[in-house]
């Protein structure tokens, strides 16, 4: 039972990371209708810049304060130079060009930071563990990640439902020409949305820095899971991204933690372990296939 609660929190934490990644990506999908494989690169850039600054200055917060604008600047530059030309192209062109971007960014980080992974320390004020329930100790840092996710979700909700900018973004998603005709600078709006998405991906990268190794190519493993989240949640829907991220986080964590034990009731321990290991690493994809069999457009398809 205690283990179950701990795994529940782990699932929640993975879900929050995935939400940070998928919120930005689903906006870009939904509003600009563009597939951006390079979203994982921004996650990586965020982690690298934060790790470097934090190591030099000794301050995690300073690392974050530098990494977020740097990543946003890189993202907006990419939007201005490459992605902007792809909005009207078909998905194939978008896939290939952003695939090229991945090559470029991965190799660039290897040139700048070398092939050795960087390691980021958990800031002292977030170190240690707290006793949530009698017998359940949980690292403070992972709780902080969950808190950041909740704050970001709240921020996005307020941004979209309560501000003028949010209204313009929603309008731009449903009818680009109409919004432009009303005098909104839609190109600037797109660049801003892209920057916002980049910043969220970088935030995920920064938060992941202390618990994972910071290395070239780190963005790709989470990128694919992010796609799964978006497809399950429904392309273009931030609410769908939130639900999808939490579901995927839970399915993945619970599968890895408990599937081998469950299978032991039926199979011999050796078979159960092998089968459990392969089934749990595929569980997310099986879950996605199941969702799409019943809901081909995802759980919360966006209005357009």
């Amino acid at each position, binding site marked *: 039972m205690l283990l179950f609660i701990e795994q529940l929190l782990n699932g929640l934490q993975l879900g929050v990371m995935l939400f940070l990644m998928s919120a930005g990506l689903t906006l870009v999908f939904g509003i600009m209708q563009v597939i951006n494989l390079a979203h994982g690169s921004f996650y990586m850039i965020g982690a690298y810049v934060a790790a470097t600054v934090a190591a030099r200055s000794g301050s995690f917060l300073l690392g974050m304060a530098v990494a977020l604008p740097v990543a946003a600047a890189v993202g907006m530059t990419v939007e201005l130079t*490459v992605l902007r030309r792809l909005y009207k192209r078909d998905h194939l062109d978008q896939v290939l060009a952003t*695939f090229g971007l991945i*090559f470029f960014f991965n190799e660039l980080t290897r040139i700048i930071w070398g092939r050795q992974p960087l390691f980021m320390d958990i800031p002292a004020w977030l170190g240690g563990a707290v006793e949530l329930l009698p017998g359940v100790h949980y690292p403070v840092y992972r709780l902080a990640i969950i808190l950041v996710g909740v704050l970001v979700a709240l921020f996005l909700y307020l941004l979209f439902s309560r501000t003028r900018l949010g209204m313009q973004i929603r309008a731009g998603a449903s009818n680009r020409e109409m919004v432009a005709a009303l005098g909104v600078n839609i190109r600037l709006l797109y660049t801003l949305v892209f920057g916002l998405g980049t910043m969220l991906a970088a935030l995920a990268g920064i938060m992941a820095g202390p618990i994972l190794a910071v290395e070239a190519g780190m963005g790709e493993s989470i990128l694919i899971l992010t796609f799964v989240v978006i497809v399950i949640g429904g*392309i273009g829907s931030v609410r769908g991204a939130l639900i999808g991220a939490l579901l995927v986080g839970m399915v993945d964590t619970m599968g890895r933690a408990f599937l081998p034990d469950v299978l032991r009731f039926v199979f011999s321990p050796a078979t159960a372990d092998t089968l459990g290991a*392969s089934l749990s690493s595929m569980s997310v994809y099986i879950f996605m*296939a199941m969702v799409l069999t019943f809901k*081909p457009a995802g759980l919360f398809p966006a209005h357009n």
Partner: protein
Amino acid sequence: MINRKAVINVLGLLIFLLLPPLTQLFGQEYLLSLFSRILIYGLAAASLDLILGYGGMVSLGHAVFMGIGGYSVGILAFHSYESTAFMSWPLLISGTENALLVWPVAVLAAAFFGLVTGAICLRTKGMHFIMITLAFAQMAYYFFVSLSTYGGSDGLSLYNRNTMPLFDLGSDVTFYYLCLGILLVFLLMGHRLMQSHFGRVISGCRENEQRVQVLGFASYRYKLACYTFAAAAAGLAGALLANQGEFVSPGLMHWTKSGEIMVMVLLGGMGTLTGPVLGAATLLLMEDFLAMYTEHWMVILGPFLIVVVLFAKRGLYGLLTGAGGRHD
């Protein structure tokens, strides 16, 4: 009929035919293994072209079929070395290194996986199709990573290539010509297929699937058949690649491999079948060439790809022949 396209095709064929004696003449035998890989990736890219270029189905998981073909070779060879059975129930299947048995198994396994996943993937369109093909490929990738019996993420090494009556596959020259022969047969078959009634329906689905349906064709079945056929060909490419390098690993079906095959198709020219072979040659030669100068060759290749996508829409084959190429 003599035109630019025919001249280019004949020239390309001559280069490939004369390559082994030329490499021996100049003492550059290592090029032979590179060109064998070019032929094999050319087969994979041409098979992707059937669904991507002709059918307009953007699959980002094509490498998975190569992986399945490769693992068919690897797993059967593994059981042959160990003298154990791959399966003892309900059928007794023991390991083998006979290419005449192993390669058809590789093709059938890839085709079966293509049929099952294609049946699900083709229910969706556009972005969803890209994502789902990608997800199935990742699923298979993680499945093979977790198969510790067959080496897990380290993969499987073969002690030697498969055996075949009359051909000595261990000889690099023989193996090269066999790959060339298989590729040519596939290109001819693919060409005939796409000129046929079946191919017209597939191209029609790319242009406007609704119209095809209105004309009374069950477009879904045509697309699924095309997808399965492409998967089978990629499975054969995987079996050849496993033999060429005498090694298989899950890396063969990583999604970046699928991306690379897609790049080959676009680089060479979509919907031309021959173009993707040219694309495979260009990409692999470029990798090899750039790697001689810098270990960071990807930093050049990445922007090169972006430029090709943005400005050279018809691909190299389109540029050379001045015709054909890409359909938007």
